[in-house]
């Protein structure tokens, strides 16, 4: 099953986004990787651990917030043994879409990324 990792500068935000996504995500493995050693920021080591925890062999879709979250996620992916891809998507909406998409028995890494990225088009008014 495709797993998810949510990267945010805030540990609380990452956990909150995981909470929202998990509501819709059934058995999908969703890991929070927020904050940097208890402070605001992102941490490649923490993201690496989350990738390892979320990956059962089918790959991981990574949702990120801003700036260094993207860079640290890229570094963590380079060091990861399995397949992992950053979704070009808003972090919360993308996480919810991806969590739902991952529950499809025919889900693949590509199909989950596609659904995560479709979240960019969600209209709210």
């Amino acid at each position, binding site marked *: 099953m495709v797993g998810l990792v949510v990267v945010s500068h805030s540990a609380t935000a990452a956990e909150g986004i995981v909470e929202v996504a998990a509501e819709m995500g059934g058995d999908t493995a969703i890991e929070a990787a927020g904050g*940097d050693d208890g*402070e605001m*920021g992102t941490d490649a*080591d923490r993201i690496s651990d989350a990738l390892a925890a979320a990956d059962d062999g089918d790959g991981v879709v990574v949702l990120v917030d801003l700036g260094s979250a993207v*860079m*640290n996620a*890229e*570094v963590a992916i*380079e060091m990861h043994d399995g397949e992992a891809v950053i979704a070009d998507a808003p972090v919360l909406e993308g996480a919810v879409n991806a969590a739902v998409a991952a529950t499809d028995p025919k889900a693949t890494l590509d199909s989950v990324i596609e659904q995560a990225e479709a979240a960019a088009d969600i209209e709210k008014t």
Partner: protein
Amino acid sequence: MSGDAEAVVAAVEAVAERIERERDHLTDLDSAIGDADHGGNMAKGWAEAADAVAELDDPDAQTVVKTAGKTVLSEVGGASGPLYGGSLVFASQELEGGVTPESAVAFAETYLEKVKDRGDASVGDQTMVDALTPAVHTFKKSVETDELPPLEALAKAVAAAEAGVEYTVPIRASKGRASYLGWRSVGHQDPGATSTLYIMEELLETAADELDSEVPDVDTTSPTIPDAEAAEE
């Protein structure tokens, strides 16, 4: 430990000491256009890196560089961890066969490409790329085309990095946190380009020490006159 690995350990230690000495200066530069954490972050990261490489048991040069990079990546916050540390880890693969003028050029090119790619930055964005690009280009040409002795090639690369740092002052930031300042970033020296120059200066000093030589007096100009006909062949 092989001679090149010993030299790289000495270089990491020299970089850590230099960054510690320049800590306040880097922080001052960063307070003007960023979030005033560059000096402290880098000093902490490189001090830890120096400790980490000192503890390695008979490493080769690649392992030393990779270990330093991993430590900087872990210890330095913000974008500097992936930019300085992550790029070192990635470029260390070029030193698999040890440090030679040729592998040093490959290392420098890979490092530059990684920094540009990771930061999505080009020359003229008021970032470390403005110091790295002239340095790497000058080093490659000095080694491969001019066939200068390695120490002279490195000295020319440092002179080029210095010119690059000066170039960051009168231009506008288009990447990194300073870019949020828009036109107000003009007139400020980029902290990342500056710390990159310090790192290169320490590589040069360490290389000169290891070779028992003085740092040669050079500038950025080339001793060879390009031969257009030869280049076309």
